[in-house]
């Protein structure tokens, strides 16, 4: 996958996202219950899944750094976590918009996914605070890697905890009807998911390339 040149990836994401937008806004039928506003869900779900994948990728690279001592793994882990946080913030934003449309409030505690992303956002924001209060070097790489691994364990544990907490906090149940997967709805969802994944990978590769260039420029200047 590293062989795919950057402009190709970027153009692919441009095409795919445009296609996804077209499908979501023009082709997919209105949701029976929620009407037009439900369309944001196509992107909200795609972005959420992509964010989880980014955190997972960050943890995988972190493991490779600690275990195999792969020299690029620390940087790749950092960039993956960074993308994960960006997409995580987007989850919170799109989720907030959806909550406002659905229930009239910009934030609802009854949505497990939203609350989970809030906790994860706090956790991974601290990742950056940790990383930038240590000077660059092997110790920073180790600490970041260990923290990224903690994050990946925290995801299922937090999800379980938040599910348990719902019975503490919410006697009422907000019913939300999931989309009925038929025809164009499924197609729109699949295209959106692929589009967001390709976009995320593109952004990851671009940021990684930029950082690697910085490193090489620095070496050239010192030489």
């Amino acid at each position, binding site marked *: 996958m590293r062989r795919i040149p950057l402009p190709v990836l970027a*153009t692919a994401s441009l095409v795919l996202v445009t296609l996804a*937008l077209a499908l979501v806004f023009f082709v997919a039928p209105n949701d029976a219950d929620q009407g037009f506003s439900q369309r944001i869900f196509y992107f909200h779900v795609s972005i959420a899944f992509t964010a989880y994948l980014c955190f997972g990728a960050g943890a995988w690279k972190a493991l490779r750094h600690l275990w195999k001592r792969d020299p690029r793994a620390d940087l790749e882990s950092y960039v993956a976590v960074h993308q994960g946080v960006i997409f995580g913030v987007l989850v919170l934003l799109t989720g907030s918009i959806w909550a406002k449309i659905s229930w009239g409030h910009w934030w609802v505690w009854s949505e497990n996914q939203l609350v989970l992303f809030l906790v994860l956002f706090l956790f991974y924001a601290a990742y950056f605070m940790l990383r930038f209060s240590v000077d660059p070097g092997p110790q920073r790489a180790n600490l970041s890697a260990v923290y990224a691994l903690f994050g990946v364990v925290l995801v299922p544990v937090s999800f379980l905890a938040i599910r348990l907490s719902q019975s503490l906090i919410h006697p009422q149940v907000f019913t939300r009807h999931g989309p009925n997967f038929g025809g164009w709805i499924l197609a729109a969802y699949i295209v959106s998911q692929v589009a967001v994944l390709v976009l995320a990978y593109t952004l990851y590769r671009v940021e990684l390339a930029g950082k690697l260039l910085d490193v090489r420029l620095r070496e*050239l200047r010192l030489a």
Partner: protein
Amino acid sequence: MTTAEKYVTAAYCVVFGVVLLYVVIIALKVQRMERDIDKLEQERDG
């Protein structure tokens, strides 16, 4: 779709379009920089 919804859709598309065009431009720039640095490194090592 109502007019309002059409405008919302158009707004989404325009924003996304601009952002993605920016990503394409950055990708091209990064590729050019990589080639330049490869060349510089070859000159240094050669």
